[in-house]
């Protein structure tokens, strides 16, 4: 009845990453259920200053809810505080900031994912050799980024317990599949025996797979990724296709965020918790089909 139109502004850090593109898609789908809500999305292209500027511009428009997926923790802290001061409820999505300048924080835990992945790899090696030993290659994302640091940290915690597990190479491929393929090619030339490739995201694991396949060595090793996106281009599909041995769902956090956001908008009595941590899920060929349906945004 031409009632109040509610504006939800979502500041995305970088929609060039498939994970984040998927966040956007799901966000659009979920908010579309509420006819009184208008969603707008901005893309900071992985640039702090751009994102700060975009949040500033959002504040000028006085949205009823602001969701921020911060590009980097420190950079967005102040401007999100500004939004709070302006009386705008703020949901901090997936990545932490330095001060609790948000109404609520919806996130997952990359260290825990790293540990899960590390444990999966150790189990695999133990099964393969009868004891925890073997050669691992890690494909690293852009150095210095939280995901890269913690996915590495969690897995390393596990590997360090087994001296016979060796990390034989850990090239940096900046999250990019094409780069991972080139870097893996060189690793394959230099390393005669590789048991596991641990990609800090699925595209890099797939890139490594493409490189190994070209040298007919893809059967010698398994490929493990992180992200576990749905859809035809996502990591779960790669597990069903037998390319990845496993991937670990890094939750999009969007469904939770929309659920909470919706209550903030429509239920004045609601007071969200300060922090919602979402668990990861392991995807292996055993559960991949099921997971595919669950995590695919049509």
């Amino acid at each position, binding site marked *: 009845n031409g009632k109040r139109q509610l504006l939800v*502004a979502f500041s995305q850090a970088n929609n060039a990453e498939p994970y984040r593109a998927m966040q956007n898609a799901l966000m659009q789908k979920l908010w579309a259920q509420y006819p009184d809500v208008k969603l707008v999305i*901005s893309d900071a292209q992985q640039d702090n200053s751009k994102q*700060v500027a975009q949040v500033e511009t959002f504040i*000028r428009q*006085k949205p009823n809810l602001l969701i921020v997926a911060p590009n980097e923790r*420190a950079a967005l802290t*102040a401007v999100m505080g500004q939004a709070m001061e302006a009386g705008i409820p703020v949901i901090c999505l997936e990545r932490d900031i330095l*001060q609790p300048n948000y109404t609520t924080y919806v996130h997952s835990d990359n260290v825990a994912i790293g540990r899960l992945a590390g444990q999966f790899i150790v189990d695999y090696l133990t099964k393969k050799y009868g004891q925890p030993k073997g050669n691992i290659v890690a494909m690293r994302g852009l150095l*210095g*980024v939280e995901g890269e640091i913690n996915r590495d940290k969690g897995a390393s915690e596990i590997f360090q317990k087994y001296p016979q597990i060796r990390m034989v190479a850990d090239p940096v491929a900046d999250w990019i599949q094409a780069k991972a393929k080139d870097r893996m090619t060189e690793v394959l030339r230099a390393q005669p025996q590789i048991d596991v490739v641990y990609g800090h995201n699925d595209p890099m694991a797939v890139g490594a797979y493409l490189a190994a396949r070209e040298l007919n060595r893809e059967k010698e090793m398994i490929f493990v990724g992180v992200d576990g996106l749905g859809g035809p281009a996502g990591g779960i599909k790669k597990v069903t296709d037998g390319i990845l041995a496993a991937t670990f769902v890094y939750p999009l956090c969007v469904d939770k965020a929309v659920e909470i956001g919706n209550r903030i908008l429509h239920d004045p009595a609601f007071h969200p918790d300060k922090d919602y941590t979402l668990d990861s899920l392991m995807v292996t060929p055993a559960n991949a089909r099921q997971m595919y349906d669950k995590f695919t945004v049509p």
Partner: protein
Amino acid sequence: MPARFQSFAALTGIVILAIAISPAAADGSRVFLQTGNLTDILRQISLIGMIALAMTFVILTGGIDLSVGSILALATSIAAMCLTRMAPGMSYPAHIALAIAAAVAAAGLTGVLNGAVIATLRIQPFIVTLATMIGVRGLAKWITQNENIDIGFGRDVAASFAALFREKAIVIGSYALAAALFALVLARTVFGRHVRAIGDNEKAAQYAGLPIRRTKIWVYTISGLLSGFAGVLYAAENHQGNPNAGVAYELDAIAAVVIGGTPLSGGRGSIAGTIIGSLIMGVLTNMLRLKNVDSNLEMMIKAVIIVLAVAVQRERESA
């Protein structure tokens, strides 16, 4: 000057468009025209705007500096490290001054290196500064061990540094000051004239006995210094030293210069033009964001408007 007037006309056109399509605020006023929004724009363009000022000098000599983004990253890192990891037992102001000096000095030295290699070995600026762009990025990541150096919101020296230097007035003020200074130097000093002369005709500059080498080293040093200072402001604004900061800033800075009417071949151009170039980019972005245009569409619209803005300038020029 006619050329400058045309840049100004292009800017005016975009501002009028921005006002026209701006959403209305609750009180019926145009959001675009709110003082807060206008100063937002200025603050947002200040960092790259400052780099573009120095880039104008570099381009006027017929050179180019691709390393500005990496130098900025190095400076953010050094400033943040000085502030968070050193305890020199000084007063806060002295400690802050030290951190800024260290960051800007390192940036300036990188500029000196650029200039010295370009002027002495006579290698193309594009290649030298490309190498610096790669190498300095590596250096910044190396000294920080790939980590961001976060500046908290406490009451320590780092936090008070950030609180001070992220102030809109300081950021915009620095840009305004730098702009005035650069305009003056270019138009009214011997150095400024040498900069233009070298880009215009290097052979003639040699015949006239101008200090070509010294001038070139200076312009790259100035470019380094300003990128370094922009890095200091970046660290304050973003509350962090970030070795990955500033990627592709060189393109934005060069674009501002070129949109402002300075050709990449050098020899002619103006600081006023560069400022207008920066403003055009800033207003354009703000206008599209205020309308919440889809980010992919935004890119396509931006592309068209950039070409139009430059075409307007060209057309009048030839007529």
